[in-house]
């Protein structure tokens, strides 16, 4: 289950020189064509094996969306064939064709049925869908009152309510907010682990690289590269950079001024974000808001304990959008002793470090445990949240570097 075989697929749209040309073509008994075939895809062949994750990249107009539409069966190929084995759930563009006058709930039923679910299944999945979309009372409001982000939330929730054999996602996620993007990527990853075949279209080579083993680069309706994701993305990025260099010779002056203004604002220490869950609360401090790469970041975690513990430890972790753990440690592994706590007592630990993360959004993991031993194991795990909160890091003074963490090398020139 979950195989896609695309063989020699081509798609041409008919272009008529005038409105009347089509009528003339239809009525002409000799059957002489009066249109020009405009090919948007030609000779596209590839196979996606069950369980494989394939990312498709390409500039606007390269034929990515048309290819996905052909694979989902929304449009017919002009030549060639597509064979799909398994149930497809596809998120093409925005909103899955929701009907604006009907409520989110009614639209969920419609969309669910088109995804091959029956009414009973949808009724059963409804609480799950509502919970995942997190749009609250809006579920019973007409979809026309939704923001585009809310539509995507609902669309993604329906499309992924039941694990499909093949999941096809077309840029849709870029509309949702950062928090929801994280949530979606988490779900996509978990589907992948369970064996769902993934076909992912994105403008972001990084997302493709982290999510997919294989990459396909489309250009002018043809497959230019079909190889492991990393090399295809590097090739794509290099070709994009060349385009950028040609298009924008200079950085505009207004950008520079804006940069200076924000530098001036970075003085006092202020609270970036805070959140409490149960007895655990977390505050992030930084000298300025927003947080820039290279700024000093303080993560203060305080926990109120409901029992007496002899050796409590608090830890945190940082994870990027792709779920890659960049750092994870706790007071025990850092060989920092804490103190014993009584029931009802609060323990507060702060971690301060220069946050030299690549600009982007990150998830903060928070964990609390008791009685450490060995290489960082604990007798008791008291609290763990792998996505406690999400924060954003903006570009700092260092420009144009790549990777996960700015290692700030010292440079010697001789």
């Amino acid at each position, binding site marked *: 289950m979950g195989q896609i075989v695309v063989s020699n697929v081509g798609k041409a749209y008919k272009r008529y020189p005038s409105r009347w040309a089509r009528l003339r073509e239809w009525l002409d008994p000799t059957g002489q064509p009066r249109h020009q075939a405009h090919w948007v895809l030609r000779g596209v062949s590839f196979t996606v094996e069950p369980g494989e994750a394939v990312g498709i990249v390409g500039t606007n107009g390269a034929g990515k969306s048309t290819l996905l539409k052909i694979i*989902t069966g*929304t*449009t*017919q190929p002009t030549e060639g064939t597509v064979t799909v084995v398994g149930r497809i759930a*596809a998120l093409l563009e925005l*909103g899955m*064709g929701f009907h604006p006058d009907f409520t989110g709930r009614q639209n969920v039923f419609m969309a669910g*049925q088109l995804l091959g679910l029956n*009414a009973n299944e949808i009724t059963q999945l409804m609480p799950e869908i509502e919970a995942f979309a997190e749009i609250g009372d809006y579920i019973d409001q007409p979809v026309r009152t939704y923001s585009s982000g809310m539509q995507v939330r609902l669309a993604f929730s329906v499309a992924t309510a039941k694990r499909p054999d093949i999941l096809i996602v077309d840029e849709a996620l870029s509309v949702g907010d950062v928090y929801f993007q994280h949530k979606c990527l988490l779900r996509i990853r978990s589907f992948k682990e369970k064996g769902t075949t993934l076909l992912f279209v994105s403008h972001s080579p990084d997302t493709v690289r982290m999510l997919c083993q294989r990459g396909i680069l489309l250009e002018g309706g043809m497959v230019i590269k079909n190889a492991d994701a990393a090399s295809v993305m590097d090739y794509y990025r290099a070709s994009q950079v060349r385009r950028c260099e040609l298009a924008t010779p200079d950085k505009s002056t207004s950008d520079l001024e804006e940069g200076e203004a924000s530098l001036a604002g970075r003085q006092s220490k202020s609270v970036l974000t805070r959140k409490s869950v149960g007895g655990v609360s977390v505050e992030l401090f930084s000298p300025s808001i927003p947080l820039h790469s290279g700024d000093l970041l303080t993560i203060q975690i305080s926990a109120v304990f409901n029992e007496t513990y002899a050796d409590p430890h608090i830890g945190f972790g940082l994870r990027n959008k792709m779920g890659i753990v960049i750092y994870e440690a706790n007071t025990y592994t850092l060989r920092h002793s804490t103190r014993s706590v009584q029931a009802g007592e609060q323990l507060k630990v702060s971690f301060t470090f220069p946050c030299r993360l690549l600009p982007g959004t990150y998830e903060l993991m928070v964990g609390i445990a008791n009685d450490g031993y060995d290489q960082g194991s604990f007798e008791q795990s008291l609290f763990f949240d792998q996505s406690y909160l999400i924060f954003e890091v903006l570009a700092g003074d260092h420009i144009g570097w790549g990777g996960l963490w700015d290692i700030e090398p010292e440079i010697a020139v001789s």
Partner: protein
Amino acid sequence: MIQAVMFRSLWEYRGFILANVRREFRQRYTNSLLGGLWAVLNPLTMIVIYTVIFAGIMRPRLAGQEDNLFAYSIFLCAGLLTWGAFADMVGRMQGVFIQYGNLIKKSNFPRSCLPLIVALAALIDFAIVMTLYLAFLLVTCNFPGWVVLAFPAVFLIQLAFGLGLGLLTATLNVFFRDVGQFVGVVLQFWFWLTPIIYSASILPETLRDWLWLNPVYPLMAAYQGIFLHHVWPDWSSLIGVAIGSLALLLLSGRLFLKLAGEIVDEL
């Protein structure tokens, strides 16, 4: 063979079709306080108004029915309500692919669901109207008796004709948007060229000879016969329409199947 595949996939999508029919029906009444009650109130007012005006105030006389107070109302409604169903069905079907364009572009499902959805929705409206009409006939002691059994048969011919014409215009309208505008104009003329609010007998002889060209005329005449005169329809006059309607339906079906793949590219 291909028809068998089509019908099977339509059956698989019955949940989607029914949900959309319900939605089409409710659509007219969303955001209204009385909701579906309007579906009953609208035709009810129509029947009441025609009855009050023509039975109570204007009192036109129909030949041979001088003693029946409600004769003209019955005659009028027999044609008007069925013509209404025909015009409603064709009118809704011609724009269906454009109306659902957003959905067609984003999901994969048998496109033949769509004309079926609006046709069924139009049928529901008609069923309500017809129930009221039959109730009115019962209340005024004008119920045609056994003859009423001929009605479904005649209506079936009308249904085939309406579906065929609707599917044809719906398909063509995607490629030539003029078709949708044209249908509206044609239906207006067609209505007045058919003896619905007037009786065929008032037409001059020369015009009456041309009525056989109008495929709706034998249907309307049959309805008027059933409900006003309580007579069985003249089946021989209906055979031509029946065969023609079936041929049209098959032709439209073939055209639709041929162009179904291209529809999404034109929206």
